């Protein structure tokens, strides 16, 4: 078992609690900031999606409206998995395509060739590029 090269400060219970209470102020501040940002997200303007999108699902073809499954809110995560992929992407491409945003062509140029080739076979990928 490897030991840390740095000697970490080990303190008394009173001192530990004091340090924790001090940092707790910042923890709470972070929670409030997160709530405030969520409030601002709720105030963002909306854009009407007028184009019809069709997805293949286990129950056949469905539209974007169908994906709501009757609820009023929908989150779509683009999971990088398509023809040529043995398994889903470990995670690196996920963050490039946040929900409701569009992947740009210049990003595709940075993807290594073998992956790019596999991606180019993916219809959904092209759909995203096309929309941009």
């Amino acid at each position, binding site marked *: 078992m490897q030991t840390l090269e740095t000697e*970490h400060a*080990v303190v008394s219970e009173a001192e530990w609690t004091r340090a924790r209470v001090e940092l707790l102020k910042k923890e709470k501040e*972070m929670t409030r900031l997160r709530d405030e940002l969520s409030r601002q997200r709720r105030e963002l303007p*909306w854009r009407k999606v007028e184009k019809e999108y069709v997805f293949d699902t286990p129950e056949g073809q469905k539209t974007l409206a*169908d994906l709501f499954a009757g609820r009023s809110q929908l989150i779509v995560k683009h999971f990088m998995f398509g023809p040529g992929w043995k398994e889903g992407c470990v995670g690196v491409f996920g963050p490039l395509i946040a929900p409701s945003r569009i992947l740009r062509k210049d990003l595709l140029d940075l993807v290594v060739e073998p992956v790019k080739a596999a991606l180019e076979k993916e219809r959904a990928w092209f759909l995203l590029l096309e929309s941009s």
Partner: protein
Amino acid sequence: MATSKERDKEHGTGHLAMNTPPIVSQQEWEAAHQQLLVKEKALTRSRDALAAERRRMPWLAVDKKYEFDGPKGKVGLLDLFEGRRQLIVYRAFFEPGVFGWPEHACRGCSLGADQVAHLAHLNARDTTLAYASRAQQADIARLKARMGWEMPWYTITDSFDTDFGVDEYHGHNVFFRDGERVFRTYFINWRGDEAMGTTWSYLDITPLGRQETWEDSPKGYPQTPPYKWWNWHDNYNAEASPDPKWVQVSDAGEAAFRKHDAEATGD
């Protein structure tokens, strides 16, 4: 599955009886999104800075011996680490007197248990997550099977809950192990608990953090490049060192991500 139209019929017109934000053009939407993105990024940076401060918190030596009941009998706090250096113990309320007993654990704790990420990733960063309650092992085993939960879950038998601030309310205690010495490094409860569940949220409350090179950590802390250690949850044991192809792919991905980041268009 009901279609949108069928469901709308059940709920009346399907139109919202509330004031919604303005509907704008694509350009205006993008502009508003970009504006808020600046704040999103600021929050992400603040979160990273807070995690860096947590890593500099002093430690408290745990000298008292604690005994838990586990699926294989009596175990000590040291055993809960399962050989790893970092341990997070979540105190879940599942015992007589708690609403839902004996079929269910506390609703809030159950919601939390439902959002626990696959533990293989946390384990790969030398970190163990364990749940602890007052219920007996037979009840815990039944609950785990019923709810499809797979985290290690122990029975508290002594003053562990009182000593670590979780006798009346749920909370996450973080411990570090140096050989046989155990330290309490951090404690998160109340709304701090709600953010837990992802691999990243757990690692961000640990003394070593995500152990990635970009992090602001004290000198000498273990760090490896981001992306490289990531693996499929069923492949960590089979492939201990990163696959060369994955290194290539993740390098390209990271370059794209950095470029994206520099242009302030990603979060």
